[in-house]
């Protein structure tokens, strides 16, 4: 039983965690926009308090047996009721702390990365807004509340991608991200409304209850799950709504690290985790999810194998790792997906922040350029990138190894081996594309070192410290697999003795191939895919997905929909109103025949009528 004191503590800590970033957002926007340093200090201190209180919440409530729920009726009728509040259960607490920690690290890092930017205060205002929205999303008690914050983080994503709004490509990328995720969100919202109409309650605990799903017919349940999954597809950049994520790299690198790899895009997977018991009641929908996850994972991996832009490589890798998470979840192990989400958030944020250091110092995104300008001379990001790339490839003993292992095990639990085979192929490709930038930067050809006078000092320190913290977490978190498992109370996937050697050797094979092509002394530094020109173009153009969208937009939306709507507007609506007007004019014309225009005649008729009425009333 939870003591009332603990319950009060939980509420206060949650409120502080959420309130601080929001207060800082309001204060920065209203008062301190003209003082960049003050704004940054406000934002960072607010998010530090958030982090401390989130972590204290996690540790105070650690062996949590029963979820803590604080909710209040926001709106209710006789057939439905909407609750808002906090739901503190193991999965939300873990996400809560994870988000708070990464937000703080990224904000500290931004001190160096965004130094001297004219929009410094604005940047920190948006960062605070994002921290508030993402933390609130993690502890939302009902699906509607979650949806609201889901949209707020989408807004933050739009604002931060288009942060450098003077650049046309940045505003375009922001718009693209906004519209594409909105497409998924529309489907999510329809799903939410359907559930609300049929169940009358949207609280997450209620939805996950076995009796709730039993009230829905299997077909309808599948429909609802798939509609909600549409939102996950949009937010987590899964197939077919995946191409907004690489374009989102137009934003500042810390934003990419925070929003577009570690936390915001993981919100989709987090939603899956939240509703896992509900989702898993529909076998068909789970198979669809598994397929979507697998396709996204493989497609994004191939794209990552050829791109020269280091940030885009990590963006593709994010899509593919999110695909892994969806696969693990859809294969029936919520622990596998969630554990990979946690570790991925750490090592992918690390990768982005490392590449951010290079981008900041060499002012280029091209990995060959970075190598040529002697990128390896920056030791901290180099070491951290190697660590994080090894973790991404699933090499022991790093975090990614443990989490990828659980996903592979959960896929092996399924009867059909095709998913496992696809995942193994993915492991190989992941190792290949993760080490490609590493070897290119580590073994540069035709070196052209830059003058090094502006290196070091305070901004570098601000950027290097978060890297070290994240690297430490990446090294350490994997060993906490068992305790996380017991805390989350989710069943682990089955044990498979031969799995570890197989997957590790596949990963090493990928690394070896990369070394062979990029690392060794006489290596051509050209991948086997890049040698086949059509294939390279195919992968570089993202499987022509964008062209497909353009085609659909032109043919379906503009040609078919827009034209028929124009016709409807002109023919039906305008035509109808004009018809009514014509009717009024015509009837007026007919009526005007009665009107003689002779005043005296009118008077005489009037008199006659009055006389006749008088006769009628007085004489009859």
């Amino acid at each position, binding site marked *: 039983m939870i003591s009332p004191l603990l319950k009060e503590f939980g509420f206060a800590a949650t409120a502080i965690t959420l309130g601080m970033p929001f207060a800082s957002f309001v204060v920065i926007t209203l008062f301190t926009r003209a003082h960049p340093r003050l704004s940054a200090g406000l934002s960072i201190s607010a998010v530090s308090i958030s982090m401390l209180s989130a972590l204290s919440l996690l540790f105070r409530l650690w062996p949590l047996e029963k979820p803590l729920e604080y909710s209040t009726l926001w709106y209710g009728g006789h057939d439905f009721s909407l609750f808002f509040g906090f739901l503190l259960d193991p999965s939300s607490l873990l996400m809560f702390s994870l988000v708070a920690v990464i937000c703080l690290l990224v904000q500290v890092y931004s001190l160096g990365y965004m130094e001297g930017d004219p929009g410094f205060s604005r940047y920190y205002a948006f960062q605070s807004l994002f921290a508030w929205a993402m933390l609130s999303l993690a502890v939302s008690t009902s699906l509607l509340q979650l949806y609201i914050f889901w949209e707020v983080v989408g807004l933050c994503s739009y604002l931060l991608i288009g942060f450098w709004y003077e650049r046309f490509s940045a505003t375009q990328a922001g718009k693209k991200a906004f519209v594409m995720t909105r497409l998924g969100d529309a489907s999510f919202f329809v799903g939410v409304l359907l559930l609300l109409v049929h169940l009358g309650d949207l609280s997450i605990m209620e939805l996950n209850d076995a009796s709730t799903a039993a009230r829905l017919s299997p077909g309808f349940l599948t429909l609802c799950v798939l509609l909600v999954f549409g939102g996950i597809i949009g937010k987590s950049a899964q197939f077919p709504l995946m191409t907004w994520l690489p374009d989102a790299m137009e934003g500042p690198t810390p934003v990419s690290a925070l929003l577009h790899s570690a936390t915001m895009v993981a919100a989709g997977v987090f939603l899956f985790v939240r509703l896992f018991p509900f989702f898993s009641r529909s076998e068909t929908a789970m198979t669809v999810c598994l397929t979507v996850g697998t396709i996204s994972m493989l497609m994004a991996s191939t794209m990552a194998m050829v791109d020269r832009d280091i940030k885009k490589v990590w963006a593709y890798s994010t899509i593919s790792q999110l695909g892994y998470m969806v696969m693990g979840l859809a294969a029936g192990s919520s622990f596998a997906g969630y554990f990979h989400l946690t570790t991925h958030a750490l090592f992918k944020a690390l990768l982005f922040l490392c590449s951010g250091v290079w981008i900041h110092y060499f002012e280029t995104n091209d990995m060959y350029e970075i190598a040529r300008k002697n990128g390896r001379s920056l030791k901290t990001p180099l070491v951290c990138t190697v660590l994080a790339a090894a973790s991404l490839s699933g090499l022991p003993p790093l975090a990614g190894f443990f989490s990828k292992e659980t996903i592979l095990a959960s896929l092996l639990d399924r009867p059909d081996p095709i998913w496992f085979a696809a995942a193994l192929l993915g492991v190989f490709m992941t190792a290949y594309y993760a080490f490609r930038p590493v070897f290119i930067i580590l073994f540069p050809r035709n070196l052209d070192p830059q003058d090094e006078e502006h290196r070091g000092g305070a901004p570098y320190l601000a950027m290097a410290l978060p890297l070290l913290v994240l690297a430490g977490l990446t090294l350490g978190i994997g060993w906490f697999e068992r305790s996380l498992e017991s805390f989350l109370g989710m069943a682990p996937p089955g044990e498979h003795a031969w799995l570890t050697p197989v997957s590790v050797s596949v990963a090493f094979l990928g690394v070896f191939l990369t070394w062979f092509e990029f690392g060794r002394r006489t290596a051509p530094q050209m991948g086997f895919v890049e040698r086949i020109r059509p294939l390279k173009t195919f992968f570089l153009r993202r499987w022509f997905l964008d062209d497909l969208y353009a085609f659909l937009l032109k043919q379906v939306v503009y040609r078919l929909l827009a034209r028929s709507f124009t016709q409807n507007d002109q023919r039906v609506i305008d035509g109808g109103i004009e018809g009514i007007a014509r009717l009024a004019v015509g009837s007026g014309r007919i009526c*005007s025949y009665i*009107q*003689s*225009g*002779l*005043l*005296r005649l009118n*008077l*005489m008729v009037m*008199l006659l009528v009055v006389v006749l009425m008088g006769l009628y009333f007085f004489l009859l």
Partner: protein
Amino acid sequence: MIVPFSHVFILAAAVFFIGLACVLARRNLIMILIGIEIMMNAAAIAFVGGALHWGRLDGQAFVLFILGVAATEVAVGLALVVAAHRVTGSVDPDRYNLLRR
């Protein structure tokens, strides 16, 4: 009361019909207005006669109101006549058939 009550009413009726004839027969707006005035005066005569007959002051008070209304009506009416004359250049009500055309 020297004059019989019925005579007063006959006078009122006669004045009323004279006014009515004026309204209906004349082709000049001003004359029509005058006809309306005459008809109102007929009503006033009837009121005064009634007041005398029943010995109550209400009828006489009403006549004062009728005089006021008649004055305003003439003021507004004449203004309208001027406006109509400006638009059509005539005071013949039979020419006021713009809607008809």
